[in-house]
């Protein structure tokens, strides 16, 4: 049965949703602004018969998750920007070994230790693989608590379906904000489809091994890479998700994800109330990026206005999607400050006029 409606913090929502999605293993190392998430799981996972481990480091945490995934568990780790950087080696190994896991990044301001205010400056790292080697991870960007609950379920499903690490990309605001949430039906891990690759004892069957090092002379690594790329093509074809708001008749379409999309939507609503035809395109998967959907909207003289909590990262995917079909404007607020709808209203007005007062036009 779905849960009753409850006011919950984003970090707690992710934690509760993970348990309900059948996750029974968590390992992480503390960092603000996502400490509520491990704190919640520290009592909730044991209650559900799962295992919670506060690791001695991020490296240890991601490798424990790798180990748990190798034995078949739905496994989760979470951190914030600098901690996720430390986990990149492990994420690359998960991708190479085709092991499913969910990695949550509640982004904070960077580079370096930065600060703990909401930021979205890890887009490149999240969507371009992040670690070494030719791999990608599906990246889901929730814009609020209810969606965070639903995308957490989806993250575990995609991870198992494609045997890949999946990233939930939030930020300090998504992690801290409280909103009413109704959780989907809980999943019993025993009801999940069996996995035919896991290391769970070989009594009565042939032994298995999980490698990421392929030294063979017969092109094993080459073949493995081709196989991975086929998988990524499949994900790109089947797993793009996005939301369109008031785009049908729009003269200007804001493009934003996560927290930035919430702020942009307030701006769009206020402009609509004044008769300005503004709309919002919100990518939910950042990789694969919903390129064709955005491309379709870029016609008939519409302007595209990209708003990010970074100095300009997603704007590159927008440029790849839109090309020269529409004017593209960009306004970014780098990590450390939370903007308000008024900032975005000024940007959208300026982009419509083309006066360059707020933000700037970007060209390929």
């Amino acid at each position, binding site marked *: 049965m779905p849960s009753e409606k409850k*006011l919950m913090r984003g970090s707690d929502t992710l934690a509760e949703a993970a348990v309900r999605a059948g996750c029974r293993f968590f390992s992480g190392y503390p960092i603000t602004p996502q400490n509520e998430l491990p704190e919640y799981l520290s009592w909730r996972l044991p209650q559900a018969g799962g295992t919670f481990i506060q690791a001695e480091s991020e490296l240890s945490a991601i490798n424990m998750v790798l180990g748990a995934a190798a034995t078949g568990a739905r496994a989760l780790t979470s951190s914030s920007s600098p901690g996720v950087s430390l986990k990149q080696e492990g994420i690359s190994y998960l991708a190479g070994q085709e092991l499913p896991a969910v990695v949550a990044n509640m982004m904070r301001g960077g580079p370096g230790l930065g600060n703990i205010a909401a930021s979205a400056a890890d887009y490149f790292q999240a969507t371009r693989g992040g670690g070494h080697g030719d791999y990608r991870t599906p990246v889901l960007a929730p814009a609020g608590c209810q969606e965070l609950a639903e995308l957490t379920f989806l993250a575990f499903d995609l991870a198992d379906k494609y045997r890949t690490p999946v990233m939930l990309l939030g930020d300090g*605001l998504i992690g801290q904000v409280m909103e009413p949430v109704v959780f989907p039906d809980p999943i019993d891990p025993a009801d999940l489809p069996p996995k035919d690759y896991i290391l769970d004892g070989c009594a009565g069957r042939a032994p298995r091994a999980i490698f990421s090092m392929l030294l063979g002379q017969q092109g094993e690594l080459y073949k493995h890479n081709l196989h991975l790329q086929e998988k990524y093509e499949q994900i790109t074809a089947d797993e793009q998700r996005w939301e369109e708001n008031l785009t049908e008749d729009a003269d200007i379409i804001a493009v934003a994800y996560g927290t930035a999309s919430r702020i942009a*939507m307030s701006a769009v609503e206020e402009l609509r109330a004044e008769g300005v035809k503004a709309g919002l395109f919100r990518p939910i998967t950042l990789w694969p990026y919903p390129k064709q959907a955005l491309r379709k909207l870029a016609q008939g003289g519409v302007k595209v206005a990209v708003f990010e909590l970074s100095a300009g990262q997603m704007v590159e995917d927008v440029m790849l999607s839109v090309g020269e079909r529409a004017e593209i404007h960009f306004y970014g607020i780098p990590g450390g400050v939370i903007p*308000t709808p008024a900032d975005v209203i000024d940007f959208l007005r300026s982009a419509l006029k083309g006066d360059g007062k707020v933000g700037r036009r970007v060209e390929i």
Partner: protein
Amino acid sequence: MLVRTQFAGFGGQGVLLMGYVLSNGAMLKGLNVTFFPSYGAEMRGGTANCMVTLSDKKIASPVGSQADILVAMNGPSLDKFEPTVAKGGLIVLNQSLIKWGPKRQDVEVFSVPLVDLAREAGSERAANMVMIGAVCAKRDLLPLEDVVKGMQAAMKGKDKFFALNTKGIQRGFTFAQTGK
């Protein structure tokens, strides 16, 4: 309808709890709500604030450009957030601590002698409950019973505080409605 309320004060004054009570009460009444707390290297004696947004429609941004209501529990909070209040908005002051009023002339000001009222309700520790009652009554945000329900949901498992807190909320309502 969309109302944004900014609560601000010292850490330890129950500032976040006020917002949490309002948020729970509004949710139980069927409204949409977002609660966004400040977070940082803040602790007892530091500053604390949160913004609560209530609406009968879907809420886009949990942070607003302006607040319709500011609840200032101390002087520094008034100084910091006074400029962010919308024209025609409401500033509610903890009169027990704030001895100077806002400089702005284009807002409504409502001063609450918080410590006196809380003592009357039974304890100074109920001051934040008096305040949330007064704020909700002043702008008809929620009826008394929904604020009490919100308090009980926000403080689930801490039933021993319910009686005192309910008295505090009632005292705030009475003050806002009768001026005494």
